[in-house]
């Protein structure tokens, strides 16, 4: 099997998975969910009103037709209108993407860079004081619930000390910067533990391989052994792991956006939950799944490209 066949198979597999996702959405929102009529029309709705609403929403169609509606929306990216704001969902998404990205991209870049550097350092100084300290520090910070960190961070640094803006957002560059600084710092702190530990594990997995011993026996310095030999091998799982994180960038950070009033996709989701806005929740679920699937394929393909062992003729 060569590379092209592999990529093709991988891409084709996207279809059944996407259909499966639509099935999950269908089961959740069209089968299991309580009748939205009462939510939208209130407790005193008449049967006629309910029937009308059902027809409007397409809920009187047979089940398979409802499922197909969902599939259609997934493939055409036509999600209809929000129940609460009456806006076109796609418009809402377009509005929400940039603010989310202004938060998630810096966090992504900073977290991963810092984590890789620290992971390399602790792997190099394995067993020494700095490694042990980092181990304790990462495991401790990982054990604090993120909500508590956000709450505390916002209260301490924005409210009490006034170092940052408490909440709010400006859509222009560079006015948005003061609003995202604090959430960025908070999340880099939250991600530090798990990211560093993961990269450290990947690097240490390689550091004990036989070829590292061979490299040392050639007379290479430890620095070169670490950077040229260990890192290049560790980069394979590291890259594929970071690529998987990219779809999450678009989803935004639900908690952060809510706390800091940043009008991104995360806030959109939370508002939809509070308003029982089915179409919006469905849309975001489907959209984020699609990007997950797509980047999953990219990650798999990348893996075969980066690892010469996978590069079949």
């Amino acid at each position: 099997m060569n590379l092209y066949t592999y990529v093709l198979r991988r891409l084709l597999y996207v279809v059944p998975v996407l259909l499966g996702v639509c099935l999950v959405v269908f089961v959740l929102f069209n089968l299991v969910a309580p009748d939205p009529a009462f939510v939208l029309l209130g407790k005193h709705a008449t049967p006629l009103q309910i029937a009308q609403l059902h027809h409007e929403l397409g809920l009187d169609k047979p089940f398979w037709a409802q499922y197909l509606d969902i599939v259609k929306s997934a493939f055409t990216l036509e999600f209809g209108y929000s129940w609460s704001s009456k806006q076109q969902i796609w418009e809402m998404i377009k509005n929400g993407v940039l603010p989310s990205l202004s938060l998630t991209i810096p966090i992504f870049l900073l977290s991963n860079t810092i984590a890789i550097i620290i992971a390399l350092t602790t792997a190099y100084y394995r067993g020494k004081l700095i490694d042990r300290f980092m181990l304790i520090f990462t495991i401790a910070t990982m054990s604090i619930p993120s909500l508590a960190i956000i709450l505390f961070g916002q209260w301490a640094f924005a409210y009490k000390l006034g170092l940052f803006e408490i909440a709010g957002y400006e859509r222009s560059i560079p006015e948005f910067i003061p609003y995202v600084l604090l959430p960025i710092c908070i999340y880099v702190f939250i991600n530090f533990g798990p990211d560093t530990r993961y990269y450290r594990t990947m690097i240490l997995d390689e550091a004990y391989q036989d070829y590292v011993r061979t490299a040392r026996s050639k007379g290479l310095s430890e620095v070169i052994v670490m950077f040229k030999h260990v890192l290049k091998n560790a980069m394979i799982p590291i890259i594929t792991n970071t690529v998987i994180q990219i779809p999450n960038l678009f989803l935004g950070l639900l908690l952060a956006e809510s706390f800091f009033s940043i009008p991104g996709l995360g806030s959109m989701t939370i508002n939809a939950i509070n308003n029982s806005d089915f179409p919006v929740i469905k849309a975001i679920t489907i959209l984020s799944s699609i990007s997950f699937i797509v980047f999953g394929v990219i990650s798999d393909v990348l893996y075969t490209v980066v690892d010469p062992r996978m590069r079949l003729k």
Partner: protein
Amino acid sequence: MSAQVQSKSLLQSALLKLFRDKVSLSAIIIVSIYFSIGLLTFSGLLNIEWGKEVGPSYSTPSMDYLFGTDIFGRSVLLKTIKAIETAVLIGLSTSLIAIVIGTTLGLIAGYFGGIVDELIVWFYTTFSSIPWIMLLVSVAFILGKGTSSVFIALGVTSWTGLCRLVRAEVMKHKDREYVQAASSVGASHSRKMISHILPNIFHVLIINFTQTFDSAIKAEVILSYLGLGVQGRPSWGTMIDDAKLELARGVWWQLGAATLAMFIIVLAFNILGDALRDALDPKLKGK
């Protein structure tokens, strides 16, 4: 003369190693304490009257109220202790659901292969393609407010990782000699899976248990924030969520108590999970 060779199973030697090390021993003790408290309050043997009004609203921590009181004048300390039961219940039930579903499906997929395997792989790929938080939120939202929806939502979203792992391990073990030996004496499929292969992949389950417990407790906090958390009983999630309104008024003790209580048990589980992984994973050379 022959040297006495004491062969311990991987599990036994791992557990022994855990008990010898001071740090992991303390973690085990902490987990046991939490679990005991949870069990005692659950069974009713220990009655925590967390709902009683013990003092004025929002009293600061003092000798009378060790962790102060909340908006209704209830003791924060008692709420925190009762919340242990909630956390233990959530953690245990989520892990149980996840382990049962994940292991069963993983065993079947890895063992039988073929179209059954394809189906199950498709199934968990579908579930893991939906971002965890969206799935969790959707399920909890659909099932409505309430404690049972929290359990179901968490359980339903936590099994995919384990399923994948179990499947991979089973596939490795399926062709090993000991399984073939069992076949040769006429063992049935289920017997092979349960009595032979399962004990050999037990270590995967244990490590996964600590991780699932851990993420379940943390997820509860997020659900509480979204208003989808447990009702009718205190939980650390609801306490932290309440804190968002309280902090501005200078009331920090509910946040502090809940965070501290949660921090300790999560830390203990993290340490245990780490120690277990080091002890049980034969591939891991050096920490």
